[in-house]
C-alpha cells in the first residue's frame, strides 16, 4: 500500500489594507465609517499615552515601562472586537489594548509607577491584571472560557501574549486543553518579531506561530498585525465562532516592536537599525490614514483635532494619576489573604500600620 495522506493543512493569512492604504475588496468587510474613525482615534490615543509614558519614565515620574509603539493596530484592532462581558487576559505589553477598552489611563500610569492598585479594573471591565511572567496566563484564559461554557453564556475570553510566550509549555497546554474541552477562548499572539534580544526564528523552528493550532486540533490563522482592519475582522470572526460553540482560535498578528523591549533595554545592542527602519514604514497609522483619506474620512484638520483631543485626555489623566493619594502600606497585608491572619495582625501592629 502506498503511503496515505491522513490530513492536509494550510496556514491562512489575512491582510485587507496594504501599506499604500489600498483595501482588497474581496476581503474588506462592510465596516461603518464610525467604526473606522473609532479605530483611528483609539490608535492615536494609545500612541499618545505611550509617548507620554516614555517621557514620564525619562523624567522619573513613572518606573520601567514596556512600550507598544508599532503594535497599535494589533492591540486596538483586536480590542475593539471584544464585546461587553468577554474576559481579557493581557500581558505587560498590552497597555494599548486596555486603553482601547476604556480602561482609565490614570490607573495604567499608576501601575507603571509601581502602584498595584493600577491593576484594579473598574467595575464592568473584565480585564485581568497584566501577566508579568511570560506566557503563563494562557491557561487562565482557557479556564475563564471554561466557566463561560459551564454557565452557557454567549461570551468568550481573549488571552494576549508574545512570540516569546509561545515557547512556554503553558501556552501549548492551554491550547490543548481549550481544544479538548472546546471552550470559547481566543489566544492572540502579537508576534512583534523579538523577545527581548531573541529574534522570532530563535523561538521556534516553525514557519509561523499560527500553525501551532493545527497540532491541537483548533482553528489558527495569521493576520497582518499592522493592518487594524484585518486584525479587527480576524478577531471578530474568532469571537463569533467561539460564541457559537465552535471552539477556540489561535491568532498570530505579524507586527513589530519599534521601541526597546522596555525602558531598561537598549535594542540597538542586538538588532540592526535597517530592520527597524524597514518596519517603521509599515507602521499601522500610515496605511490607515491613506485608506481613510481615499474614503473621504481623513483630512489633516481631522487628524489635528484627534491628536489634540488625545493629548488633552492624556494630560488630564496624568494630572489625575499624579494627584492620587499614595497607597496605604497596610494594603499589602490586607490583600495577601481574603482575611488577615493572626500573625499578620501582629505584624501590622509591629510595623505601626494598623488603620
Amino acid at each position, binding site marked *: 500500500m502506498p503511503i496515505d495522506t491522513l490530513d492536509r493543512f494550510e496556514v491562512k493569512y489575512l491582510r485587507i489594507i496594504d501599506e499604500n492604504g489600498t483595501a482588497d475588496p474581496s476581503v474588506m468587510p462592510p465596516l461603518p465609517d464610525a467604526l473606522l474613525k473609532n479605530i483611528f482615534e483609539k490608535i492615536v490615543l494609545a500612541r499618545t499615552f505611550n509617548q507620554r509614558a516614555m517621557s514620564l519614565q525619562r523624567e522619573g515620574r513613572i*518606573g520601567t515601562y514596556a512600550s507598544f509603539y508599532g503594535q497599535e493596530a494589533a492591540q486596538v484592532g483586536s480590542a475593539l472586537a471584544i464585546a461587553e462581558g468577554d474576559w481579557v487576559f493581557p500581558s505587560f505589553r498590552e497597555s494599548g489594548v486596555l486603553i482601547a477598552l476604556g480602561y482609565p489611563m490614570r490607573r495604567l500610569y499608576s501601575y507603571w509607577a*509601581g*502602584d*498595584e492598585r493600577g491593576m484594579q479594573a473598574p467595575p464592568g471591565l473584565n480585564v485581568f491584571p497584566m501577566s*508579568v*511572567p*511570560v*506566557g*503563563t496566563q494562557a491557561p487562565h484564559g482557557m479556564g475563564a472560557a471554561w466557566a463561560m461554557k459551564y454557565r452557557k453564556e454567549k461570551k468568550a475570553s481573549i488571552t494576549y501574549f508574545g512570540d*516569546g*510566550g509561545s*515557547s*512556554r*509549555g503553558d501556552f501549548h497546554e492551554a491550547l490543548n486543553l481549550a481544544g479538548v474541552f472546546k471552550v470559547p477562548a481566543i489566544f492572540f499572539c502579537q508576534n512583534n518579531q523579538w*523577545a*527581548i*534580544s*531573541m529574534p522570532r526564528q*530563535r*523561538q*521556534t523552528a516553525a514557519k509561523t506561530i499560527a500553525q501551532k493550532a493545527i497540532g491541537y486540533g483548533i482553528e489558527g490563522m495569521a493576520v497582518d498585525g499592522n493592518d487594524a482592519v484585518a486584525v479587527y475582522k480576524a478577531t471578530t470572526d474568532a469571537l463569533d465562532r467561539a460564541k457559537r460553540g465552535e471552539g477556540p482560535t489561535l491568532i498570530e498578528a505579524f507586527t513589530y516592536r519599534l521601541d526597546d523591549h522596555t525602558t531598561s533595554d537598549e535594542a540597538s*545592542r*542586538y538588532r540592526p537599525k535597517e530592520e527597524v527602519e524597514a518596519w517603521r514604514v509599515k507602521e499601522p497609522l500610515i496605511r490607515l490614514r491613506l485608506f481613510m483619506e481615499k474614503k473621504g474620512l481623513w483630512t489633516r484638520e481631522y487628524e489635528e483635532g484627534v491628536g489634540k483631543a488625545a493629548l488633552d485626555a492624556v494630560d488630564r489623566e496624568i494630572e489625575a494619576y499624579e494627584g492620587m493619594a*499614595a*497607597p496605604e*502600606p497596610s494594603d*499589602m*497585608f490586607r490583600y*495577601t489573604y481574603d482575611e488577615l*491572619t493572626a*500573625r*499578620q495582625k501582629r*505584624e501590622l501592629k509591629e*510595623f505601626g500600620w494598623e488603620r
Partner: protein
Amino acid sequence: MEYMQREKISYRKAIYRALDRVLGSDEKVVFMGEDISEYGGAFGVSADLYRRYPSRVISTPISEGSVAGAAVGLSMTGYRVIVEIMFMDFITLAMDQIINHAANIHYMYGGQVSCPIVIRAPAGGYRGYGPSHSKTLEGLFLGIPGLKIVAPSTVQDAWGALISAIYDNNPVLFIEHKLLYNMEGEIDLDYKIGPIGRARIAREGADVTVVSHSYGTHLSMRAAQELSAQGIEAEVIDLVSLKPLDIGAVAASVEKTGRLVTVEEGDLSGGVGAEVVSRVVEDCLPYIDGRIVRVGKPDVPIPASIMAESRVLPGVDDIVDAAKRTLSWE
C-alpha cells in the same frame, strides 16, 4: 583568558571568570539561559562568553521547564550544565525538573548516574521590581533532599563556590543577589572553597551571633558596626551554603555568645532562619541566654513601591534592633 592572580573585581566579574575558567578548561560544560548570548544576560553576567564558546553558551527559547529538563538529560549523559534563570521568581517554572527529577535521579538509579547541574538564579529586591521580579525563594528548596544550595556574599566566595558547584556531582542551586553584582572585592584565583557546605565567620564578636547569607551578610556587617559603636560586639556568620547547612559553625558561635539573630530576605515562614533556629535550639539550648530573633520578610508579597518594599524587606536598623532584643528575655 589569562587573569591576574590577585585583583579587585566585581561580583559579576567573579561569576563571569568562574564560568570562563570552567568553559575554557572543560569541553563538557554547557551554559544555557534566556538572552545570555548577544544580549549578555539580563544582569550582564555572561557578557561576551558566547563569542568565545559559541557552541556551549546558548540562548534558549523562553522555556524554563524544558531547559531545566534538557539539562537533566545532558547531565545524565556526561555534561556539566549551568542554567541561568533570568529572575529567581521564574524558577517556579522549572520546579518539577529540579525537584522530581534532578534531585531524585542519583537515588533512583542507585548511584549509577548523577545530575551535575548548576541553576544560577538572581534573587532579591530593594529595586522596586515588584512582586514577580524580586523574590528570594531559597526557603522553598530547603526541604529537597539531593539538592544543594549556595548563596555566596563575597566576590571571593562567588568565584570559589561557583567552581565547586559546577564540579559537584549533585544539582546545585546557586543564588546570586541583584545588589551584589556591582560590589567589588579581592579575588585570589588559587582560592578554593572546597566542598560545598562550610560557613564563613565574617566578623568575630562575643555578645550576639548574627547568621545570614547572600546580601543579608552585608546588611548584618553594617548592623554589627553600629552595634559596636554602642558597645555590643556581634559575631557575623555568613552561611555561604544553605544546604548542607554548617550548623556546627553556628552552634560553636552561639555557645560562645549565648544569643542568636538570623537575617534573611526571604519569608520568615519556612525560611532559612526557621531552619537555623530549630537546629540551634535542638543542639545548644542550655547555652541560650536571651530571646532568639529572626529578621526577614513578613507574610506579604513584595510590593512594587520602593517605599513600601524597603519597609517589608529587612534593613540595617531591623538587625540592630533584633540584636538588642536578644540581650534579655524581655
